[in-house]
């Protein structure tokens, strides 16, 4: 009984802090426009040419939605470590804020998802 009551109290505590803490929204390029100036996780696939230098002045690339036919593209400016698997066509997650039409990423926040880990044949094609 003691166990259950304490567990219940803890559960409430967890629910409370999580909702109050709210977390960071994960969004794609097609909806990022609704979150101008807000800290978000931008999830998408790299398209087109990757330019600039992540260690000098920043790396620039375009991101589109992972799924669906949305044509929206978001310009991303990023500096810091670039993961091994980053390149055009990869799915990535990057944290930052949309300012004046450019998504300014937090340094070092770029994470590539490695689809090749479990199905290399399909994803490398």
């Amino acid at each position, binding site marked *: 009984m*003691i*166990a259950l009551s*304490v*567990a219940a109290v*803890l*559960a409430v505590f*967890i*629910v409370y*802090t*999580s909702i109050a*803490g*709210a*977390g*960071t*929204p*994960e*969004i794609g390029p097609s909806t990022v426009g609704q979150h101008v100036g807000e800290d978000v*996780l931008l*999830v998408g696939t790299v398209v087109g040419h990757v330019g600039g*230098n*992540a*260690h*000098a002045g920043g790396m620039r690339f375009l991101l589109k939605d992972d799924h669906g036919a949305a044509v929206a593209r978001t310009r991303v400016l990023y500096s*810091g*470590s*670039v*993961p*091994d*698997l980053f390149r055009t066509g990869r*799915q990535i*997650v990057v944290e930052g804020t949309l300012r004046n039409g450019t998504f300014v990423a937090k340094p070092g926040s770029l*994470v*590539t*998802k*490695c*689809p*090749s*880990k*479990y*199905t*290399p*044949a*399909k*994803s*490398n094609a």
Partner: protein
Amino acid sequence: MALLGRAALLLSFGLVVYALVGGSLAAWKRRRRLALSAQNALVASFVTTLVAAIVLFIALGRRDLSFVYVAQHTSHSLPLGYALSAFWGGQEGSLLLWLLVLTGYASLAVLLNRRSRELIAWTVPVLGGIAVFFAMMLCFVSSPFATAAAPADGAGMDPSLQNPYMLAHPPMLYLGYVGLTIPFAFAMGALLARRTDERWIVATRRWTLAAWTFLGVGQLLGAHWAYVEIGWGGYYAWDPVENAALMPWLAATAFLHSVMIQEKRGMLKIWNVTLVSLAFCLSIFGTFLTRSGVINSIHSFSQSSLGGWFLGFLALVIVFSVALIYLRLPLLRSKTKLESLVSREATFLYNNLLLVALALTILWGVVYPLLTQAVNGETRSVSKPYYDFFLHSFGLPLLLLMGIGPLVAWRRASLRALGKTFAVPAAVSLVTGIVLLALGFGSSTPGLLAYTFSAFVAASIALEFIRGRRATGSLSRLVARNRRRYGGYIVHAAIVLLAIGIAGSSAYQTIREQSLKPGQSMRAAGYTLTYVSLGTRQLQNAQQTSAVIDVSRGGSHVTTLHPGKSWFPVEQSSSNDVSIYHDPRSLGDVYTIADGISKNGTLDLKVLVKPLVNLVWAAGFVFVFGSLVAMWPDAVEQRKLADRYAAVPV
């Protein structure tokens, strides 16, 4: 060959279905011979699954690309060891490994417990039922023996998986995950047989301990792999897939502690069956997470069709165990009550609550994106700050409890006796805290607390060994006479090392990044790193470019490091080759990453100085040693148990 594999798997499927159906019937109608044949079917299913596994191993070894699985995960240039490790590199192979380990464990557990007839009668069909699910997946949904016209070469293996750790890390995790099936099946078997005494706990104690050790070691190996191979300078990132392994480990840790209360005092029976079900469900949930792709993870497993199956199986397991526990509630009520909030039982209870709370907060964090998606249509996720907050608020008190619990008396402890017991450890930790504060370690409060609490626990463990030795005269005799207790203390010491290592390498690390031209230097936490030159060389399946970095401290040369990058032409991807110097003086590392190498020879060098990080890996060895001590068969204990159960009619 593929036909043989498929036939062997179909046979396994038939055998485990028989173990489920025949075993249930035998237990229900109390038919001994049928029960025995169900047990034999379970053992035979291990043999047939082993045949299937050998077929796959041979195909991988020969790079028989007519197997779709082999073509997808290996290539002709892939070294043999890694080709074999592709067994657990993909989904179908992983499932086969799961079934192999499950039937292997189940056979052994059944053979070792044949004499506990009533308990084992219902355990066999439960084990059979779980195996049916995996065998069904392998036969009808995701077969490793699908064939096609062989391509010229296979797709190869992701470079980051071409690492010796990948030979050991996944099998260890599987041995752990699947190992949790055994205590779960015995618990359910005991409930079905209406035997709610602690016999199922005694029968599975070593299994739980072994599964828990494998899970712990598997995670440490994974952490070390991430540290040396992935090249971001850390070893744990609160990624959903990492959390998936941590949650069942935490639940199993709670279970290992709470069963002692049931053994000693006959309490917490409901809690124990609930915990063991939770641990098992979390291990299935972990598999679901990794196989469904429902949650964004850096591991990002393919969106496979298996997710739904696993979710269905998980729901079935939850409904089954909750219903069974509910139906047996009257039998599970304990006769003894908690006598005092200051007693060994009570501290174990606090430990359990904190561990389960930690596991559940992590679970909440993992499923949070799914929940917010379902509630308001927008995916929101929590990250490091959320997990760190709960690790600090539940983990630090847990650390402190580890020093308190073992020294508090059973039933009821007097506060005066407690004061006496804890005077020395408290003094040691106080002095440690003051000294560290004076040395400037106050920059991180959680770090300072972790160090201070660790000093407290270490002192209390040392005190226990000194007291025990005084009583018995010899350290080895002391440990040999009471393996569970002192094995447990050794494991606690390992957790202290782990806590110190984690605190040191995360709360007090230094990170520096700089672009260097040959001849230029940079400084990080007292070390000077000079970029000397750049070189390239051809490996068996990759081209490697690496820098020569001279590391010095206080003007004198310490070592030369070679961070670089490798390019894998078959896989069309590159991999960071980090270069690490283990400083024997500080037990820390100088960790270098060649973040960028330009054509003109400019190097973007990232340097992390991580104090005490080697204690994390050292903790792994101490952890295994302690677990082995606790697991080692104890003749005295066996005799005691035999006497105890001889009195109970079976």
